[in-house]
């Protein structure tokens, strides 16, 4: 489903990704781990099409399409979803209104009819119940005044409503207490399907206790330096990132 080949990217003139190769098949859950500044979030944002990140080399194919040639909205409509590490507060834009507009834009692209207000509310209530969300969040401005946990849950809620093909979760587990973490994990697990893939960007192994990945990658200094099964995550948890063969570690060795 997703092929990333020799991806290089920079932000504000600084090279962050220095040749990423990554392949995700449908139905798989991949985790990307790595120390701060390794480029994990950059990879997530490049996948979503953040305009501040400049791709300086390589390519990304999504279902065979050139993802880098698509603007952010086209990627979303094609089925790419990124849960933000820091969801943006948007005063004055009603959460439900925004989500309905987004859902209908995505549905239109998929050749589905627009949902009317009643159908939309049915769908939304179902997803909110599953995620244990307070319905009052719907009528508040997008993320405004939400607690950290509410913001993260709102991201998962949007994912559940938009039903993407590839969901990229950018440190959605950071800053969550264990109850919120379980809710987020359950939300992800409930959506695991043969025709959907996940890329979990995380700093901690903790989330992977609840969402068991098929593949774990370790990112360091803008490159994937190690890939393995879920046991790699435990190894990282135990030993930290110091033992990884980063280019810098090699040089000092």
């Amino acid at each position: 489903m997703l092929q990333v080949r020799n991806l290089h990217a920079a932000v504000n003139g600084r090279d962050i990704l220095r040749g990423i190769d990554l392949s995700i098949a449908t139905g798989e859950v991949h985790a990307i781990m790595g120390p701060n500044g390794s480029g994990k979030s950059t990879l997530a944002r490049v996948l979503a099409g953040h305009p501040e990140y400049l791709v300086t080399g390589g390519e990304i194919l999504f279902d065979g399409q050139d993802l880098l040639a698509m603007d952010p909205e086209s990627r979303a409509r094609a089925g790419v979803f990124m849960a933000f590490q820091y969801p943006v507060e948007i005063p004055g834009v009603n959460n439900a209104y925004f989500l309905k507009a987004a859902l209908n834009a995505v549905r239109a692209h998929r050749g589905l009819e627009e949902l009317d207000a009643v159908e939309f509310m049915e769908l939304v209530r179902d997803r909110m119940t599953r995620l244990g969300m307070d319905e009052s969040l719907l009528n508040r401005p997008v993320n405004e005044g939400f607690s950290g946990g509410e913001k993260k849950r709102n991201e998962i809620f949007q994912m559940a409503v938009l039903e993407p093909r590839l969901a990229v979760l950018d440190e959605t587990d950071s800053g969550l207490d264990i109850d919120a973490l379980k809710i987020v994990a359950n939300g992800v697990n409930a959506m695991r399907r043969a025709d959907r893939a996940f890329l979990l960007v995380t700093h901690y192994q903790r989330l992977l206790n609840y969402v068991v990945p098929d593949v774990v990658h370790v990112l360091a200094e803008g490159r994937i330096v190690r890939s393995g099964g879920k046991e790699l995550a435990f190894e990282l948890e135990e030993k930290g990132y110091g033992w990884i063969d980063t280019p810098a570690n090699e040089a000092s060795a």
Partner: protein
Amino acid sequence: MTGTVDQYIAEWERARPRWQRSGGDNLIRTREAALRQFAALGFPTTRQEEWRFTSVAPIAERTFSLARPATAAISSVDVDSLRLTTTPAVELVFVNGRHVPELSRTRTLPARSRVESLSSALESGNDLEARLTTTRWAEKQPFVALNTAFVEDGAWIQVPARTVLDRPIHLVFLASRDNADGALMLHPRVLISLGENSQASVIETYGGTAGGQYFTNTVTDIELDENAVLDHYKLQYESAAAFHVGATHVRAQRSATYRSHSISFGGALVRNDVIAVLDGEGVECTLNGLYTADAQRLVDNHTTIDHAQPHCASREIYKGILAEHARGVFNGKIIVRPDAQKTDAKQTNRALLLSEDAQINTKPQLEIFANDVKCTHGAAVGQLDDEALFYLRSRGLGDASARRMLIHAFAADVLNHLPLELVRAHIETRLQRELARVLPAAA
């Protein structure tokens, strides 16, 4: 500029015989005195502090004339787009400055309430000359003097004590381009008096034929007796080539409530002045405004809230959306007189610049002479938040709809303060149309 003032004098002389035929020597004297005042003042220049950022040269350099009687050949379709969706108490329609009874709608009003055209009020011998000249504040305002010099029609609204009008009063001022004598000028005057404990909503809507280069110079004078409540809407939807200068003067007595909702979407050169004198204890005054402009247009909002007595509260939010090469000016003066202790004044003004070339000149002006007061002001100028824009797009919304959603959100706190749902809907529709024009929908 003398030459241009002479043109107004000539136009005035042309109208004199008609005014003489319709009687009222006092009124002609009032007009004549105002004309002299205007001639003495001349058009303001950018050397004057109050007009520093707004050159009225485009108005001064053109020649305008009054509409000849019976040239009003405007189709009712134009009026319909400006009407409100529900029936107001009274809807007075003015075309090219004159009341058109056939297009107006009236309903039975509570006893002794008066809502009628100024022309008929003057004809039936009401002594309104005093009211036309009590505008002390007009002495330094050439456009107010000019309005008085040519005053002919407008609206006279009088709500007696303890009377509540539960439906709004709607005044529609429409300019037609088809004036045989060149560019048209209109000088409507609106007089509103609310007796003690009375309540009303008055909506003034200004519009004109698309592309019309006319000049609307309007003055509204409001007197609120004790405990009176007025919601006052000014919806300025003039043609994008028109000139609009408007002054609203309010004097509020003890415990009165005045709420002004000023919407300014039209006009090539627009200047709105709102001057509210809080002349009794416990007055509550709200001045809210929302304006948009694109191309080379200029919108200037000047407000003055004069806290003359203690324990008054004022709230003010003005928001502007400026695209392309548009310019905005906001000047918010708050005066707190020595006696006005316990004043509580809050002013906010924000501008959203949608292009590198759009500009705003903004100036809060606090003149505080009392010591036990609470006055705050804040001004902010910004662009659309790129992170918010990306967030919306990353969920599938197209760039143009995401931008429109954010601009609309910027305007929301002014829109949400509009008490009348039907007016809000009217404005929302117009705003969406403006935004669609500035940001054509992409896929």
